[in-house]
C-alpha cells in the first residue's frame, strides 16, 4: 500500500455527541421536521446514515441532524412487519411492539401518507416483499417519563399494539446513529 499519514484527517471535534448539517436535497424526506427521524440518501440500501432532526434552516435548506450513537428520543413507530408486493404494497402483517425490538427508517408510501418514518418492517413496500431493505434505525427501550404512574419507567405499558391491526405508538428509541 502507498497510504500516508493525513495532515488533515480530523474534521469533527472529540465529543460525546455528533450534530451535523445536511442539505435538504440529500434527505429521503426533503421537507424535514425537527424532532422527527431522518435518513440521508446513500448508494447502498440498508446502510444509510440516520438520526434525529434537531433544527432546520429553511432559508438555506439545511437541517441539523443528531447522529449520536446511543442517543434516545421519543419517536412514532408503526407496528407493520411486512408489506404486500409493490410498488405501493399494502401493510400485510403487524406485530406488537416490545422493548428491544429493532426499528427501521421505512420510506414506504403508506408510511409517508401517515407522516411516520419508523416501523418494525425490515423492508419497504416498493417491490417484491423483502426486496428493498430498510436501514436499521435503533431499538425500542423503556422511557423515563411519567407515563408509568409512579414507577420510574414506562415498561408496564409494553407490549404495544395488536398482532392483526396496524397501529402507531410513541416510544423511546435508542438510535444507532453513525455507529453502524
Amino acid at each position: 500500500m502507498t497510504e500516508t499519514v493525513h495532515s488533515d484527517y480530523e474534521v469533527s471535534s472529540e465529543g460525546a455527541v455528533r450534530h451535523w448539517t445536511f442539505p435538504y436535497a440529500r434527505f429521503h424526506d426533503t421537507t424535514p421536521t425537527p424532532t422527527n427521524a431522518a435518513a440521508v440518501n446513500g448508494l447502498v440500501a440498508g446502510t444509510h446514515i440516520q438520526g434525529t432532526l434537531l433544527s432546520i434552516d429553511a432559508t438555506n435548506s439545511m437541517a441539523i441532524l443528531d447522529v449520536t450513537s446511543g442517543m434516545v428520543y421519543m419517536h412514532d413507530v408503526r407496528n407493520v412487519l411486512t408489506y404486500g408486493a409493490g410498488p405501493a404494497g399494502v401493510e400485510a402483517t403487524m406485530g406488537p411492539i416490545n422493548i428491544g425490538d429493532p426499528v427501521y427508517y421505512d420510506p414506504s408510501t403508506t408510511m409517508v401518507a401517515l407522516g411516520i418514518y419508523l416501523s418494525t418492517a425490515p423492508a419497504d413496500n416498493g417491490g417484491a416483499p423483502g426486496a428493498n431493505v430498510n436501514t436499521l434505525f435503533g431499538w425500542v427501550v423503556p422511557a423515563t417519563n411519567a407515563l408509568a404512574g409512579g414507577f420510574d419507567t414506562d415498561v408496564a405499558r409494553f407490549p404495544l399494539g395488536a398482532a392483526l391491526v396496524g397501529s402507531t405508538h410513541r416510544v423511546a428509541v435508542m438510535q444507532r446513529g453513525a455507529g453502524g
Partner: protein
Amino acid sequence: MTESVHNDYEVASEGAVRHWEIPYPRLTDQTPTPTNPARVTGLLAGAQLQGTILTISPGPAAATSFAVIDFTPSMVYMHDVRTVLTYAGGADGAEASWGALNIGDPVYYDNSTTMVAAGIYLSTAPANDTPGGVGPTANTLFGWIVPSPLATGFDTNAAVFPLAAGGAGNTHRVAVMQRGAGG
C-alpha cells in the same frame, strides 16, 4: 405529509455514555449478573441490542426486576470469550470447530446450550447451536477483541495473543470493545 413537532421528543441526556434500564423479561438471560454481557430480546435474530450489565435491581417479580446496562458504543470491558467457531447440525449441536483468539476478532452473543451450561455469553461463532431445535440461529455481533492495559511490563497485553483455540475449546478473558447501540 402530516408529521408534527413532538413536544416530548427527547429522553436521553447528552453524554458520552448510555446506561439504560431494561426489565428482566426482555433479556435473553433473565437472571442477569453484573459485569456480564446482556442481550435484549428483539424481533430479528442478528439485530439485537446488546451491552454490559452494570448493576441489577431484583424486584418481587420478574416484571419489576431491572438491570442497568451500558449500551455505549466502543466501551471496553473484560469478558470471557469461548473459542468455538461452529456447531454441529441439529438441535443443541455440539461444538464442532475452534479457532485461536486474536486482536480484532469479532465476538458474538451466543446463546447456545453449551454456552449457557458453561455460564459464558460470548464466542467467536456467528451462529448458535439451534437451542432446543428452535431457529433462527444467527448470533448478533457484540464487539471486537482489543488489547487491554497491563499492570506490569509492556503497556498492553498484546503479547499474549493469539490465545489458544484448544483441542476441545477454550475460554479466555479478554478485553472486548462493544458495539453497543452503535450498530
